[in-house]
Each structure stands twice: as structure tokens, then as C-alpha cells.
């Protein structure tokens, strides 16, 4: 399940809803990861753009990968502005055994950071500034650049 929301995530509700959705599924492990905006470099918050078509296909590939291991992945992310100490990202894995869940959440979050088509901006002094130095070029980038 991939869920996108305008603004900050309602963390307690999302975690509770996911827990209840899978309560009858005989999963031994539920491992959530919650990403929260912290105070750093004088920012007032973060803001996000999302390109949904490619995010959806990226997530679908992960859903199938998890299913092959008997696991379920879920993810929620914010669009637009999220202020300090609010949360913009939740991912989780349900699996029969803990080892699969712990390994999968690590792989999933790392690949999310490197590949998911989401762009982050710092909110600072009323401006929305692209966080280029904290961003990662998607694998295969530079295809259209001049060959040196």
C-alpha cells in the first residue's frame, strides 16, 4: 500500500491503521520506520514534490519483491510543506519472521532514498530551496549530458 498525503502525516493513526489491517494476517513482525523533520541549519521545515507515475511503479516492484518473501511493505509520504518535528515519511514491513522484516525495511528505505522520484526543499526565510547537496542522482543519470 502506497499512500500520499498533503502536508504532515498523522503518524499514530497511520501506524494504528496498518497494525489493524494486518492483525489477522499471522505476521510475527511489524517493523515501522518513521522519518521526522528535525531542526537543522535554521530551516523552518521541508517541502516535497512527488512524481506519482514512477513512484507507483517503483513501489509496485517492491511490493512484489516483499510478497516473494511472504512479507508486506507499506509506505506513506507527504506532499508539500512539513514543519519541524512533524513527520513526512513512514515505511513498514510485516513478515512472518523478524529477520526478513528487519532486512527488508533497511533495503527498502535505502532504495527509497536513492531511487524514489521525490524532491526535497528546505523551507527557510520564506523561500523553498532545493536540497541538491543532500539529493542522490538516480542510477543511469547523465544520459542526455554532453560527452566529454
Amino acid at each position, binding site marked *: 500500500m502506497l499512500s500520499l498525503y498533503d502536508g504532515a502525516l498523522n503518524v499514530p493513526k497511520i501506524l494504528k491503521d496498518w497494525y489493524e489491517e494486518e492483525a489477522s494476517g499471522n505476521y510475527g513482525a511489524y517493523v515501522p520506520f518513521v522519518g521526522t523533520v528535525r531542526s537543522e541549519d535554521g530551516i523552518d521545515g521541508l517541502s516535497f514534490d512527488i512524481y506519482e507515475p514512477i513512484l507507483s511503479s517503483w513501489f509496485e516492484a517492491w511490493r512484489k519483491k516483499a510478497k516473494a518473501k511472504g512479507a508486506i511493505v507499506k509506505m506513506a*509520504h507527504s506532499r508539500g510543506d512539513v514543519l519541524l518535528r512533524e513527520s513526512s515519511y513512514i515505511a513498514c514491513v510485516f513478515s512472518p519472521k523478524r529477520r526478513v522484516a528487519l532486512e527488508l525495511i533497511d533495503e527498502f528505505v535505502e532504495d527509497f532514498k536513492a531511487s524514489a522520484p521525490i*524532491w526535497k526543499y528546505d523551507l527557510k526565510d520564506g523561500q523553498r530551496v*532545493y536540497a541538491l547537496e543532500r539529493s542522490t542522482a538516480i542510477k543511469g*543519470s547523465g544520459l542526455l549530458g554532453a560527452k566529454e
Partner: protein
Amino acid sequence: MVRVEFLGPIRKNPMELDIANLSELAAILQEDEEMNEWLKNSAVAVNDTLVSSLEAPLKDGDKVSLLPPVCGG
């Protein structure tokens, strides 16, 4: 015509171009100085699938997207 979209922080309006492959698109965009850095660090998708070759043929109605460096979470 092929529609070219610039995602996220690339502040550029979509273009409609008569091109047959990504090599032709590369040549056009390399003429635009403001695109130089973006071309070096952006990935390319055709009809929402990431591609790795300039030779992939393009046809009327196709959509090309440029995806600059990402940072979700």
C-alpha cells in the same frame, strides 16, 4: 510530437518536439546553457519507464521526463 517534461526543481516549461530518439533531444537541450548541470545529473524516463540508451526510438505521442537528483523521506 514528443512531449518533454522537466520534473521537480528544474524550473522549465514542457516542450513539444519533433524528434525520433533521445540523441536528438540531447542535442537540442545541450544548446540551452541553463540545462547544462541538469543534463549531467538527471535520469530520463520514456512513458514513465527509466531508460539507459539514447537510441531508444521515440514516436508521436511519447512522453519524455527528466528526473533530477532525488531525496525523499
